[in-house]
């Protein structure tokens, strides 16, 4: 049975022996023996280790499940927020780019611009600005320095824009060379044929039209002057006709516009 003296003796002996083992390994002369003795233990532990990883993974997955779900929700919220931010950033960037383009285009400094979002598409565009933003009927609508159309109806908070490709719309235009810096080499009437199709008519036979020439507004018919309209695509060669005509390619797709500028002159 229990004897205090015996217990203390064994305790001291084993304690000193353990300390000797500890010191021996730290000193480096028991490493070989320990390595030899640990081999059976390592071999015994090997089969456990294989499925220990799987069990550990499962346990940690189960334990961390509530926190993980919460974290996922939080991350989803953050993602949604970031998507909104990114959308706004993209809009701002495109808006900035258009403003830059507009500012870099050679337009008269006396012109004032009102930015508007396109909210409906069709033969006429519906834009997000109206009389509350000083928009009035007859004002010219641009995309960069490209003519888009004219305001035909201004409500308080929105307006209708008549596109230049609308069937029946006619605008007096001039034709310049490809570099667009030369003088007007021909004059005519631009007629809208609908669905992004434009036709240049009433051009005198003696005036020479070339594919790729640029078409500009002349500042007549309620449209501001020197605005790009399109590019000549195909010229009709009927010499017997009084006038020559040409098809004109628009420089923008009017049905894909998202943002335009309404222009007025002070």
């Amino acid at each position, binding site marked *: 049975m229990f004897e205090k003296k015996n*217990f203390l003796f064994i305790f001291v002996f084993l*304690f000193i022996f*353990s*300390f000797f083992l500890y010191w021996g390994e730290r000193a480096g002369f028991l490493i070989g023996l320990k390595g030899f003795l640990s081999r059976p233990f390592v071999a015994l532990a090997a089969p*456990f280790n294989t499925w220990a990883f799987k069990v550990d993974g499962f346990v940690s997955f189960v334990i961390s499940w509530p926190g993980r779900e919460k974290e996922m929700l939080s991350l989803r919220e953050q993602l949604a927020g970031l998507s909104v931010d990114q959308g706004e950033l993209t809009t701002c960037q495109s808006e900035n780019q258009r403003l830059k383009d507009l500012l870099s285009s050679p337009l008269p400094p006396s012109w004032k611009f009102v930015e508007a979002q396109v909210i409906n598409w069709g033969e006429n565009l519906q834009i997000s600005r109206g009389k509350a933003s000083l928009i009035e009927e007859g004002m010219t609508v641009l995309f960069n320095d490209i003519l888009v159309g004219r305001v035909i109806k201004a409500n308080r908070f929105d307006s209708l824009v008549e596109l230049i490709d609308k069937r029946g719309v006619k605008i007096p235009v001039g034709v310049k060379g490809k570099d667009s810096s030369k003088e007007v080499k021909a004059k005519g009437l631009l007629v809208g044929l609908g669905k992004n199709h434009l036709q240049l008519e009433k051009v005198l036979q003696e005036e020479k039209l070339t594919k790729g020439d640029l078409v500009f507004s002349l500042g007549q018919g309620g449209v501001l002057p020197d605005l790009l309209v399109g590019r000549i695509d195909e010229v009709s060669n009927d010499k017997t006709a009084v006038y020559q005509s040409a098809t004109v390619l628009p420089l923008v797709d009017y049905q894909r516009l998202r943002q335009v500028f309404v222009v007025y002159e002070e």
Partner: protein
Amino acid sequence: MKKILFLILLLLLVTFQISFSLPNLSLGALILFLSLSPTEDWSLGVAFLLGLFLDLTRGDWWGLSSLFLLLLVLFFFLYQRRFFSQSLWFLGLFTFFSSLFYDYLILGRLSLMASFVLVLLLLSVRFGLNYFFVGRKGLKIGLKSK
């Protein structure tokens, strides 16, 4: 024979514990053994061997765990004079702090949850042993302090 079987069980627990990130099962087994063991001398030998097993399998400094476990046995028998060693409170608190100190001093981490789980595990096993084996033979070990 029982002693050899117990040593084999300890060896398996050590191996199992090293492979899995579990509460300190071998420490729990030792404390359980201490609370059941009638002879303290044998407990010292078990603590010493268990420490050697642990250090061998984990690759820690050899003898370090033995030193800790020998001190643990000493403290256990010192305090069992004051507190009845089979009381739930004593067993629970002793296991909790032993596990906490062992993990902190030897493994360098403070595992509160693992220590708490070990306490629950040990008390359950202790209660189960008492109920299914000892109690049925009429040799009930009291779980209340005197």
